């Protein structure tokens, strides 16, 4: 138990260090978003983000899945267990996507204009 906490704390510290190191070189933007693929579903099924957000999909199933834009704007390779796919959404809009292997699996990314970056211009 103690060991788990220590490891978790270490990981958090490490992650914070990376973020701190990386932050100055990146433009100000909304926090990145993650979609988990689990039990043949995208969770959350609908995600709303600011423009400029990178959405990362992580496959936690024992079966490969894909992330494919219904409008053919983005397409992952087959994601095996624990594989990730990231896409940065720069333009506001509603992006529908699905798994091309199991097309009953669908999801939506809603991208809103980034008010903060607009205000700073």
């Amino acid at each position, binding site marked *: 138990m103690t060991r788990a906490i220590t490891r978790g704390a270490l990981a958090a510290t490490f992650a914070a260090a990376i973020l701190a190191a990386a932050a100055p070189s990146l433009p100000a933007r909304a926090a990145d978003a993650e979609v988990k693929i689990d*039990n*043949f*579903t995208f969770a959350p099924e609908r995600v709303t983000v600011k423009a400029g957000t990178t959405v990362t999909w992580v496959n936690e*199933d*024992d*079966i*490969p899945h894909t992330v*494919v834009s*219904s409008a053919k704007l983005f397409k992952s*390779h*087959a994601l*095996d*267990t624990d594989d990730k796919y990231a896409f940065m959404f720069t333009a506001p809009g509603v992006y*529908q*996507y*699905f798994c*091309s*292997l*199991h*097309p*009953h*699996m*669908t999801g939506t990314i809603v991208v809103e204009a980034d008010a903060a970056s607009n205000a700073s211009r």
Partner: protein
Amino acid sequence: MSEFDDNDDRSTGVNRRKVLECMTWAGTGVLWTIAGGVPRSMGLIGEALAAEPSGLTFLQISDSHMGFDKPANPNVKGTLEEAIGKIRSQPVKPAFMIHTGDITHLSKPSEFDDAERIISQAGLDVRYVPGEHDILDPDVTLYRERYGRGSKGSGWYSFDANGVHFIGLVNVANLKAGGQGSLGEEQIAWVADDLKGRSTSTPIVVFAHIPLWAVYPTWGWGTEDSGRVLELLKGFGSVTVLNGHIHQVMQKVEGNVTFHTARSTAFPQPAPGTAPSPGPMKVEDEKLRTLLGIADVIFKPGQQRLAIIDQPLKS
């Protein structure tokens, strides 16, 4: 190839019974016959095999998933080898074998190589259709290069053997968001053309990866436009539809059409709706081989009866 008749065999044949009976082994040594949707016991499997059919016997295997290494079965090569061993020890040597897809797990060349090396040990001609796991390589070329020679579109084709017309279909390509398996316009038009002028007394066997009937649409276990192909097959006296994908035996008889799904040689999947998802089902080690297996399909000329005998790796 030489053991198959020409593709344009349109002979009318004799006046055959239009009743289709289908036998399936429930896994406890009892053979069931299902006619008109009513199952009835036929005795022990040994008696049926002792009858030594003089017609056509072929085998179906499915869902080998070479490359899968998760807890549901970390040794899919081993269980495929066992399945091939079982095929080699069949009392009646099958004329050939069909594989209803998901040969590999991730469409890697090494996975196709493993499948080829193990399956070839059966010493049988093998006819394939792809599963969705076989077309994952970026250029979608590996399956076609190995198994799709001479096929149309994304890999569909037909052939004849002992007066039975076989149609291999692809329902895993170009799937649409929110949908299920799909055949598409081009393939359906090809089926219509393939059946044109064919005698309705010709027994038809259709095989494809995803079930061509609505097993459980919630999990995508069906083919959205399969009804159009079944419509084309309506006039035929005997139609047998063989699928894989769902990693369990399931059967339905509707008029002259018998639908049947084969077990996987790799891992079991849950019965429809009994789990949060259709993902690989982890069972106790002793139970695994009772849920994996092969299927024997026996056709006897004149009787127009196809018997399907599912054999688990271990009973």
